[in-house]
């Protein structure tokens, strides 16, 4: 066992592989060393470890100075003490110094109660801020989805790591020096004018209130209190497997029924489901995919393959910015959220005799970029958006708390009809690989005219960043590529662009794990096992559904019969498809 190192941590003797850090070794035996700048998405190859905050310092016998646990590798015979008086006093000083340039407005901070710095100050028992000195004064930068309040930045640089390494977007970088050093954009331009795609992973990673999503809860409450307005809500598939965490429930708890009850209590007139529109997306995207495939197989050289999914607004922004030469490759199908809005404000509103202006459509999304998506001009009719407001899972939890609802004690109830009925295929939209699996279920049956013996395509599931699989369409092999996280998407797309890899269809999600790991989900603080549990819950949700193929949804069939006509037909095109814009003028380097 020459690659094993023996050491002692707090009187525990242990052996760990060479290269392990003190932090990892301690965690392995259940000793928690506090951290602040350290951020790791385990299994995704993403780690922010600048060793700069010094909160994780520990005492090592024989070493004159305290050492950072996140950065220091174990060595043979090392004796580590993680919580001596000297260590605790040093941590206090470190946090005290960080607080000397941090506004003490915790009472009104969007991160209050979830802030890692606040938690440290509580855990260390800080009672005063000793070091009064100069304070940073930056202007708040408000983009359509993300708010940057750099006065609160503690320079942990987690956001910079996820923006550059994980997402390869490169909007954020450390700029200036000394006291003026801060994480910012090129030339300190507004985030909106930078290469930012609004995926929001920086918000998910930020330990403090420096980065947060635009808060739309007030807008929604105003609409709910306006008697002239009919306010309806749609909920994305990934919300129901994560919302419970906000109320102390286990990650991966499925709270669909409680969520519907809570939304009724909040006063929404109708509680519908984005899953309905996900089934609709499969009808459109699946039809488009089959059409392209059939034409390609018949020798039509003008067909662009692979077809790529287009549900994810961060991904749409990404290819508009970085792959302007491939704008005709993704499916033209709108995202489920926007399809829902388009159908609600036409078909459904006409049915109930409600004018477009008096109907307010709210969406609950695991996503920050959705806030931007619903503001895009092409999704408006005479200035009136198809979806008025998009709230994150966290904002919904906030609203539930405003009303003093005991979420965990709520009984279950069902979505309203017709826009609340869905299949298991729609449920898995929330997981990486889910959209393409749902499309495969439908495309297979439409293409082969045979019923699938087994609807589970386990070869499309999993959490590795880039996946490839071949599905047998009754003798025709269909090559499928899947990527989650935009850095992984870039790897896959570069292969497609260069001709190195050939696929028939590709699914891409901007966030790690797909929507379950979305930026609008409850903060996981770098504990990626929570995302995995949500992902498993998504597949349980699917398995529990009586119908598991989108084209079998009776309300979808009715919608086509009564209103839309054929999938990808004239009316469907007008309402359910979109077009993309070349935004490459924002991008210089990548």
């Amino acid at each position: 066992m020459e690659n094993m190192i023996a050491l002692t941590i707090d009187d525990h003797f242990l052996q760990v592989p060479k290269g392990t850090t003190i932090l990892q070794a301690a965690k392995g035996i259940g000793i928690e060393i506090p951290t602040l700048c350290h951020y790791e998405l385990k299994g995704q190859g993403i780690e922010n470890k600048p060793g700069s905050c010094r909160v994780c310092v520990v005492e090592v016998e024989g070493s004159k100075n305290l050492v950072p646990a996140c950065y220091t590798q174990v060595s043979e015979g090392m004796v580590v003490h993680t919580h001596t008086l000297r260590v605790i006093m040093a941590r206090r000083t470190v946090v005290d110094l960080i607080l000397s340039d941090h506004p003490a407005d915790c009472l009104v901070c969007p991160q209050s109660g979830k802030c890692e710095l606040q938690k440290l100050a509580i855990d260390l028992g800080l009672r005063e801020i000793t070091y009064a000195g100069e304070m940073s004064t930056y202007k708040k930068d408000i983009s359509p989805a993300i708010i940057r309040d750099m006065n609160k930045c503690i320079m942990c640089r987690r956001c910079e790591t996820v923006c550059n390494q994980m997402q390869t977007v490169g909007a954020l970088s450390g700029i200036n020096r000394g006291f003026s050093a801060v994480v910012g954009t090129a030339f300190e331009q507004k985030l909106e004018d930078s290469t930012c795609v609004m995926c929001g992973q920086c918000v998910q990673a930020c330990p403090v209130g420096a980065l947060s999503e635009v808060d739309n809860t007030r807008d929604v409450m105003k609409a709910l209190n306006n008697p002239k307005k009919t306010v309806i809500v749609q909920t994305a598939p990934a919300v129901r497997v994560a919302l419970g965490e906000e109320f102390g429930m286990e990650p991966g708890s499925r709270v669909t029924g409680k969520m519907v009850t809570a939304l009724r209590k909040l006063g929404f007139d109708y509680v519908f489901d984005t899953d309905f529109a996900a089934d609709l997306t499969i009808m459109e995207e699946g039809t488009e995919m089959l059409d392209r495939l059939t034409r390609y197989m018949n020798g039509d050289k003008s067909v662009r393959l692979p077809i790529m999914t287009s549900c994810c607004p961060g991904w749409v922004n990404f290819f508009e910015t970085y792959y302007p030469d491939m704008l005709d490759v993704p499916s033209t199908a709108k995202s489920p959220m926007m399809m829902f809005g388009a159908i609600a404000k036409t078909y459904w509103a006409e049915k109930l005799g409600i004018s477009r202006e008096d109907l307010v459509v709210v969406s609950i999304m695991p996503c920050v970029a959705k806030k931007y998506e619903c503001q895009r001009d092409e999704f408006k009719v005479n200035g009136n958006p198809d979806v008025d407001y998009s709230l994150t899972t966290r904002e919904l939890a906030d609203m539930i708390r405003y009303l003093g609802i005991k979420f965990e004690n709520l009984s279950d109830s069902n979505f309203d009809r017709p826009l609340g009925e869905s299949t298991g295929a729609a449920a898995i939209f929330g997981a990486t690989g889910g959209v393409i699996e749902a499309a495969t279920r439908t495309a297979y049956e439409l293409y082969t005219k045979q019923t699938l013996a087994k609807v589970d395509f386990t070869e499309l599931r999993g959490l590795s960043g880039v996946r490839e699989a071949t599905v047998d369409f009754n003798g025709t092999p269909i090559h499928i590529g899947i990527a989650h996280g935009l850095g992984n998407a870039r790897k896959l797309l570069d292969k497609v662009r260069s001709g190195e890899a050939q696929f028939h269809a590709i699914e891409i999600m901007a966030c790690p794990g797909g929507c379950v790991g979305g930026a609008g989900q409850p903060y996981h603080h770098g504990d990626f096992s929570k995302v995995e549990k949500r992902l498993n819950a998504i597949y349980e949700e699917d398995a529990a559904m009586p119908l598991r193929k989108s084209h079998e949804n009776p309300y979808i069939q009715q919608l086509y019969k009564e209103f839309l006509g054929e999938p990808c037909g004239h009316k469907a095109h007008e309402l359910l498809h979109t077009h993309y814009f070349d935004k490459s003028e924002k991008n210089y380097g990548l």
Partner: protein
Amino acid sequence: MCKFELNEHNKQIVTEVCESYGNKAGNVIHVLHGVQGKLGYLPAEVQEFIAMQLHMPVSQVYGIVSFYSFFTMTPKGKYPIDVCLGTACYVRGSDKVLEEFKRALGIGEGQTTPDGKFSLNTLRCVGACGLAPVATIGEKVYGRLTPNMVAGVLAEYANM
């Protein structure tokens, strides 16, 4: 002073510098040095163009430019003034000389006069401590300066 234009000529200059460093992102500091040496400064358009050549985010290029005090985004004047604030010069009153340059020119540190004639910066030691306090204008060194000598020094450039 005319606005910087990233014309074909300037693009050619930047492209050559980038190529001489293999268009590698790891060489960005050398590239910035080289380009500033040729153009005098690094305006945003040039940083964007460099980012494009080296395939790296422009935010990171700006991160480097804004970190190192050597790099500048404002064009230097025809006659760049550098006042030494090194220990020897400082104890002999170079801070007061700097204040007088600021007052006489009406600009702050790191700025350039509107006519583009003078720019004012500070540095730490030019190796002429025996002449402290020292300032340089271009290649020329002025020693044993006092605030009331500043007007006379500037007058040397009045008709140039």
